[in-house]
């Protein structure tokens, strides 16, 4: 390796006082001043590499966390899995005395996740049905119609809706929403839609699927609307201008130029909202009624996968009970991972161009 030497003439590069000292050093063919300085600072290759490894380690810890959760949940739910296998998710017990259906009775070791799966699906999809039209409406208003002054504050307000913790939603739902439903909304639903069989007058508490779905809808609205807004703003302006130039009204422009182009991303946003609704725990636990039964009526009490874990885990009666609850948690984990992965791929496909680049 060649020596680094001072290219300038020595008298100019060095200050006058230590000149004599330097000439003696140079005669002994020692490393130049810059080389010595660099060597005294040490070699950074080692430090650079270990820094990079450290940072990669932090990044890989995210994989580690997911794998760890997965492995732990599988390990702890082994007992229930060995006992029931897939029957755990659809088994129906029949009570020997009353001949009525029975699903979940930990004391008599009856374990079936069916009512919880039913409750989770019913409350989530009902919430989606309520939230999606509203969320798309808000996104359309904010991106296409809203006057500039209102846009910022309104977007901020909907974001704020996403930041409120679920326990506060639950508290509000318990003391404001449920009484409101009980006194005013449920009687109306029963009298007008009772003939469908979905709204029967057998639950005077006001708790149940409808209450859970309304609070869930309020909670997932900001997620869906902010993602919809994101994909709608990603639609190029030339699309809008082209449709307008053909003589379309504003709504026709939004429908043909914007919503059509953004539809994959909107579906992604909806699926992401679904993922959030499936796993939402506290607010649902507080208003769904927590009884492991299956009723056709949407006004009756039910329970959800997350709610039963929240309610029973800390006071589980037996190891099998605990294991069964962890198995419900594992199912919830797998389902939400799939739902979220799907949603992310759809959103990326729209906002970043080619879907092939998404992973």
């Amino acid at each position: 390796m060649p020596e680094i030497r001072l290219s300038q003439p020595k008298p100019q590069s060095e200050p006058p006082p230590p000149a004599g000292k330097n000439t003696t050093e140079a005669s002994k063919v020692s490393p130049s001043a810059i080389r010595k300085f660099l060597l005294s600072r040490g070699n950074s290759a080692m430090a650079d590499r270990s820094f990079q490894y450290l940072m990669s380690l932090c990044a890989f810890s995210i994989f580690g966390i997911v794998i760890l959760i997965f492995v732990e949940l599988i390990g702890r739910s082994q007992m229930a899995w060995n006992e029931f296998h897939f029957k755990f998710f659809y088994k129906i017990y029949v009570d020997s005395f009353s001949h009525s259906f029975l699903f979940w009775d930990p004391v008599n070791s009856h374990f079936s996740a069916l009512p919880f799966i039913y409750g989770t699906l019913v409350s989530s999809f009902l919430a989606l049905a309520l939230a999606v039209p509203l969320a798309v409406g808000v996104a359309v208003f904010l991106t296409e119609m809203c006057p500039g002054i209102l846009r910022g504050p309104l977007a901020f307000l909907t974001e704020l809706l996403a930041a409120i913790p679920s326990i506060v939603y639950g508290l509000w739902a318990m003391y404001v929403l449920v009484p409101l439903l009980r006194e005013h909304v449920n009687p109306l639903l029963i009298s007008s839609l009772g003939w469908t069989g979905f709204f029967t007058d057998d639950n005077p508490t006001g708790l149940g699927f409808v209450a859970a779905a309304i609070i869930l809808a309020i909670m997932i609205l900001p997620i869906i609307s902010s993602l919809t807004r994101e994909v709608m703003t990603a639609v190029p302006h030339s699309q809008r201008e082209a449709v307008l130039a053909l003589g379309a009204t504003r709504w026709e422009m939004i429908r043909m130029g914007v919503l059509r182009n953004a539809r994959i991303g909107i579906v992604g946003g909806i699926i992401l909202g679904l993922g959030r609704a499936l796993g939402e725990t506290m607010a649902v636990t507080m208003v769904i009624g927590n009884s492991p039964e299956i009723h056709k009526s949407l006004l009756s009490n039910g329970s959800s996968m997350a709610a039963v874990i929240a309610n029973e885990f800390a006071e589980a009666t037996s190891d099998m009970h605990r294991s069964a609850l962890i198995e419900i948690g594992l199912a919830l984990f797998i389902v939400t991972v799939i739902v979220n992965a799907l949603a992310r791929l759809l959103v990326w496909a729209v906002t970043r161009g080619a879907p092939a680049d998404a992973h």
Partner: protein
Amino acid sequence: MRTEFKLRASFRAFTDHAATALAVLSTLLVVTPLVVIFGYLIFKGFSSLNFAFFTKVPVPVGETGGGMANAIVGSAVLLGLASLIGIPLGIGGGIYLAEFGRGTKMAYAIRFTADVLNGVPSIVMGLAAFSLVVVPQGHFSAMAGGVALGIMMVPTVCRTTEEMLLMVPHAIREAALGLGVPNWRSVLSITVKTASPGIITGCMLAFARVAGETAPLLFTALGNQFWSTSLNEPIAALPLQIYVYALSPYDDWHRLAWAGALVLIVLIVLSVSLVRYVTSRGVLKGNS
């Protein structure tokens, strides 16, 4: 022919107006619950918030008064522990994504996993922390709660750190490297330092998010009616206490639950507003 055209035109105009009206209506319907929730919370919370709330521990059933001092301190302990776990891991991951793994398949995979992890229900995080910490330890503890919350912070911190680092202009990095600064030093004292306002607000966002989490604490930190700051014992937390009090049949406890919810919300709204201020005013853009 002419009348048909006119009819069509008026129908189209009508559809346009109807769509506009529906969009406005849905926006109003979305803003209403927010205003109602906030209004009710402020009305209920303020009337029951007092000095004792911040200084006293809960009193036994039947007595009035008492506060949530232990829950506030407990929440602080849990969040401190969570930050110790979540923030270094998250920032490190973000640095990797923005500085070393840019454009690689591995970085895509990590980003994707972080986004998916972000969507995993908090109750599942609680189950994982239960199996990881509570079962080996043999009892509920503050440690387990901190681990659960810490894991939840990682993806949020990681993604915001990455986004903020990507906003730092390349010229700054090149200037530092051109002066002979080692890469690690350039990343830490130039890039990260430039992006630090954004990274700090990202951490606050993650902090605010886990501050309100109840589900992962139900069977890790468990809650405690008494004063405790030990990491090896069950500890009280504000959201847990709100949950317990909300489900209780006593009016006085309901009052405390509303006050607790107000405190939680004020904390969260403050940090979210700060995040919005930093990202919209472009604190970072001043450097470019």
